[in-house]
């Protein structure tokens, strides 16, 4: 991208950048925290290790993004202040990320839908005019490719494996599908960040996500559920009941011992 075209673009305000980076950061953090619950309880050691790796990648992304958000905000909040000292309405993760693990099939379906979105988003963000965000995206996109390979591979195994596994992932897909509405419905901030050359064009993400997910569902012999309108979006701070419980557990120690360092 040439300097001339960059300079022709409008620039977002610090508040807009902060809000936008938080969406990415919180989605990675909350998804990573959910997967971390599973360590030691997976269906086989190999899956324990793989889910642990994915959780580590996601929390790693969250740390970089939260630190960036803290710098943009300029009020001295570091990654831990942002992770541990905000309440649910201030979290900006997509609601899909906070959904409980359920059985292994539900975990895989959630991850698959989310991985496809993160992969396409970070792929586009590598070309962001925001250099910090582009640098983080370069690292994250490699991780997201692996996450997608893992979750779509398991979706295929479970979708095609046995009658029971097929029924389980189909039920999980039906239950979680409504949360994809948020992934594909841009709001004013998404549009503004695209115009500023910082975020991807929402239509592009939608198209790529649809293609990727359709291929994975076909491979897993699963039908795409009907669209469900679901306007309660985590990225606006409107969450499901699950987030509060996740945060109560995650934030307990720093909240119980204010000001302590660990």
């Amino acid at each position, binding site marked *: 991208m040439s300097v001339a075209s960059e300079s022709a673009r409008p620039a977002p305000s610090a508040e807009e950048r902060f809000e936008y980076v938080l969406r990415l950061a919180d989605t990675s*953090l909350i998804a990573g*925290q959910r997967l*971390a*619950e599973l*360590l*030691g*309880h*997976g*269906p*086989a*050691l*190999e*899956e*324990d*290790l793989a889910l*642990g*790796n994915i*959780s*580590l990648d996601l*929390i*790693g992304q*969250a*740390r970089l993004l*939260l630190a960036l958000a803290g710098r943009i905000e300029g009020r001295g909040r570091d*990654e*831990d202040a942002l*992770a*541990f000292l905000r309440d649910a309405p201030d979290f900006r993760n997509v609601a899909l990320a906070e959904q409980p693990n359920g*059985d*292994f*099939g539900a975990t895989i379906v959630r991850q698959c839908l989310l991985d496809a979105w993160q992969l396409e988003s970070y792929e586009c963000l590598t070309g962001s005019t925001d250099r910090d965000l582009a640098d983080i995206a370069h690292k994250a996109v490699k991780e997201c490719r692996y996450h997608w390979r893992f979750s779509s591979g398991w979706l*295929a*195994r*479970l979708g*095609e*494996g*046995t009658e*029971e*596994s097929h029924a*389980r992932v189909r039920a999980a897909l039906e239950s979680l599908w409504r949360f994809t509405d948020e992934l594909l419905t841009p709001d004013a901030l998404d549009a503004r960040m695209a115009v500023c050359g910082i975020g991807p064009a929402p239509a592009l993400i939608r198209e790529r996500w649809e293609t990727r997910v359709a291929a994975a569902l076909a491979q897993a012999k699963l039908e795409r559920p009907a669209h469900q309108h679901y306007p309660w979006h985590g990225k606006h701070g409107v969450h499901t009941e699950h987030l509060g419980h996740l945060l109560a*557990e*995650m934030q*307990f*120690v*720093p909240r119980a*011992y204010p*000001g*302590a*360092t*660990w």
Partner: protein
Amino acid sequence: MYTQALDSPGGAAAADAHERERLERFQERIDRDEKIEPKDWMPEAYRQTLIRQIAQHAHSEVVGMLPEGNWITRAPSLRRKVVLIAKVQDEGGHGMYLYSAAETLGVSRGELIEQLLSGRAKYSSIFNYPTLTWADIGAIGWLVDGAAIMNQIPLCRCSYGPYARAMVRICKEESFHQRQGYEIMLTLSRGSAAQRAMAQDALDRWWWPSLMMFGPSDAHSVHTAQSMRWKIKRFSNDELRQKFIDVTVPQAEFLGLAVPDPDLRWDESAQHYVPGPIDWSEFHAVLKGEGPCNRERLEARHAAHEAGRWVREAAAAFAEKHQEPLRAAQAG
């Protein structure tokens, strides 16, 4: 393999002589510090002892993921959280190398896991204690991993090749874990009064169980002599325990924490710390299944195994349809 020998008494005597000679040659190889490899001949008792020991170690790694996993979701900072996830993940990895090492002796991971779930196989009793505060994560790294390293470093020179090689990698990671644990304790002991109290409480609860990790005293240890001859074990339980105490007491002093042993004293002439008596009745009770968390640990393994059954079945069915190499499904 012994059917021929059973056919005639004369043959049996010849076979005995042959067997004795093989045993002698085997012992000579061990005495020369040669490594025994999976395809080499080995006495059945050597094979069984190793399977028991390696499996017990593997199970300990896998069950050991539970008490620390208990704090992953509540780790007090994001840095501590990723370090703890990586640590618990390392333990799962150790379980995998160790099951693989045991498999070279002709037993499958599935059989070994079955033995764990049915209660026939043991794992380290230390993991039957609860993790009640964040400081327990520090204490486990410092004391439990510290004790494990004392036990395991000599095993890098163990006579069985695959086990010795697995231990080299495991020990490197364990010493990293031990330093992380100590660093948590250091941070707590330099922190607020509540954090220092938390650190002291953790030391109070983990000190004696850590000393028991080395097993019964030499006078009561059943497996020591033969295992020492075979170089499966290289130091006695009491020697290793003493070494651990000598290294750890000054570390506790540096933290400003009190070792919970009123009889502990420094013996100037022996140049060793002398601890008070260990309550072996607690050790035996925990070993028998009467520890605070024996039930929870096995229930958690059962629950994961049962909840994963349909997943493993699906993976196996898929692999069959697509000739995909079996992986998860092999875990039994």
